[in-house]
């Protein structure tokens, strides 16, 4: 029982990060129908920059801010300079370009920082509080929950309560109609990519201290888990992405806890296959199934 409680909390904490990362994937999918396979690599790139700033200045938080703002910038630049030039007659084109970006970014990171693991420090203790002999959460876990909750809340407010959010949603659903109504659809797209990449970078900063550390490929496994989370949630649904993230986090935690860590990635892929076969529109889709 103790073990179950511990694994549950651990799973929710991981799941919160996957939720944030899945949310970033959903943001771009909704606006462009492209799964941004480069998101993990982009997040790692900004994390490297962030940790470099932290090392140079001695301030973790300055590096943290640089990483997230760097994500904002990198997302905007990626949309403006790369994705906008992609021929959108087939969605596959964008996906292939995103996969190419992964190779470019990881290659460049390897050249600059080397292909060894570098430590990624956490800003808070990762030692769990124990309540009644059961290890529950660490300070860092609480920070993860708080940060993800804040991001989700801000995104909800942005999309449902502000006119920019209304423009962004309209641009994603009906670009031509939105342009006829005076919406700068291209600008909204850039903003969407910027926000998504910033959320991705945040997720990277939250997950890297719990992984082996900084490495050009450090987010690959996280990407797979988060992509599964987004698909479980239906790719179109922000609520689904958050729920999917928590489901995948719990699954990973239970499987590694009870069956061993080596089985965990297989469990995630199995979940992906089962969902795609059984409910290709995701567990939270309202509309008909969509081919992924």
């Amino acid at each position: 029982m103790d073990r179950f409680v511990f694994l549950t909390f651990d799973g929710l904490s991981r799941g919160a990060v996957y939720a944030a990362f899945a949310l970033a994937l959903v943001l771009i999918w909704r606006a462009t129908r492209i799964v941004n396979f480069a998101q993990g690599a982009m997040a790692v790139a900004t994390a490297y920059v962030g940790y470099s700033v932290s090392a140079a200045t001695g301030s973790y938080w300055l590096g943290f801010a640089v990483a997230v703002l760097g994500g904002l910038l990198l997302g905007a630049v990626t949309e403006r300079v790369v994705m906008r030039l992609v021929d959108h007659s087939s969605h596959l084109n964008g996906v292939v370009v995103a996969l190419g970006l992964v190779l470019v970014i990881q290659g460049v990171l390897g050249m600059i920082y080397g292909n060894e693991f570098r430590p990624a420090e956490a800003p808070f203790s990762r030692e769990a509080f124990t309540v009644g002999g059961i290890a529950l959460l660490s300070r860092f876990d609480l920070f993860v929950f708080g940060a993800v909750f804040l991001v989700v809340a801000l995104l909800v407010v942005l999309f449902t309560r502000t006119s920019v959010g209304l423009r962004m949603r309209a641009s994603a659903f009906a670009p031509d109609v939105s342009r006829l109504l005076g919406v700068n659809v291209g600008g909204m797209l850039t903003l969407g990519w910027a926000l998504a990449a910033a959320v991705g970078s945040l997720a990277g900063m939250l997950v890297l201290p719990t992984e082996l550390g900084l490495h050009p490929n450090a987010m690959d496994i996280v990407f797979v888990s988060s992509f599964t989370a987004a698909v479980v949630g239906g790719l179109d649904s922000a609520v689904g992405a958050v729920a999917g993230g928590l489901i995948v986090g719990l699954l990973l935690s239970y499987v590694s806890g009870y069956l061993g860590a080596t089985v965990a990635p297989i469990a995630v892929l199995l979940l992906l296959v089962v969902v795609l076969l059984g409910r290709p529109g995701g567990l939270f889709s309202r509309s008909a199934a969509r081919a992924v």
Partner: protein
Amino acid sequence: MTALLEAEQLTVGYGAAPVLHSVDLTVAQGSITAVLGANGAGKTTLLRTLSGLLRPATGRVVLDGQDLRGVKVEQMVRRGVAHVPEGRGVVTELTVDENLRLGGLWRRDRVDAKRALDEVYDLFEPLARRRRFPGHQLSGGERQMLALGRALVGRPRLLLLDEPSLGLAPKVTAQIMGLLRTLRDRTGLTVLLVEQNVRSALSVADTGIVMSLGRVVANADAATLRDDEDMRHAYLGF
């Protein structure tokens, strides 16, 4: 009567084959002009070109004396052009209220944008009762009201309407045609109306343009078109 909109020698094509061939068109300020013709005559292409969604290969569009070449689509609404596209263009994932607000987001005068929104709710009572409903839950008639209302929130000078009667009951169509006439009389709105429903379009229009295979084959008073039996038989099917 002064011309609000002029198209000169518009040739437009998707790919190699032109869909519009050297179309000339003049729409008088404060008038309702019906664009008639069979499927594939180029009516929708004409509207999409006038609102900037399509770029003509040759020719130009002039609004109130200003050449619109090079004006972006999203700037057209700021120049007073509202285009209600085929299939109405209601963003079905958004609520009625969000759709309507979208129509006025570009406006700097927030007070008048709000006033225009309230006027639309007064004008279309069914919309006022369904403010929080998503677009996909509306009936065809309500969607048409929403699309029209959303255009009106921007207080346009020129309204481009693509097949507003499509899929609507005759009574609802008649209401919408009546409303267009009221708007023209009250606010001086200029309307360019693409219609398959020739009778209802000519009942409200001042002038009519008949298109066939991408060319304008007739341009006359609505009454003249109604009475021209040869024209009706040849192009309008009644």
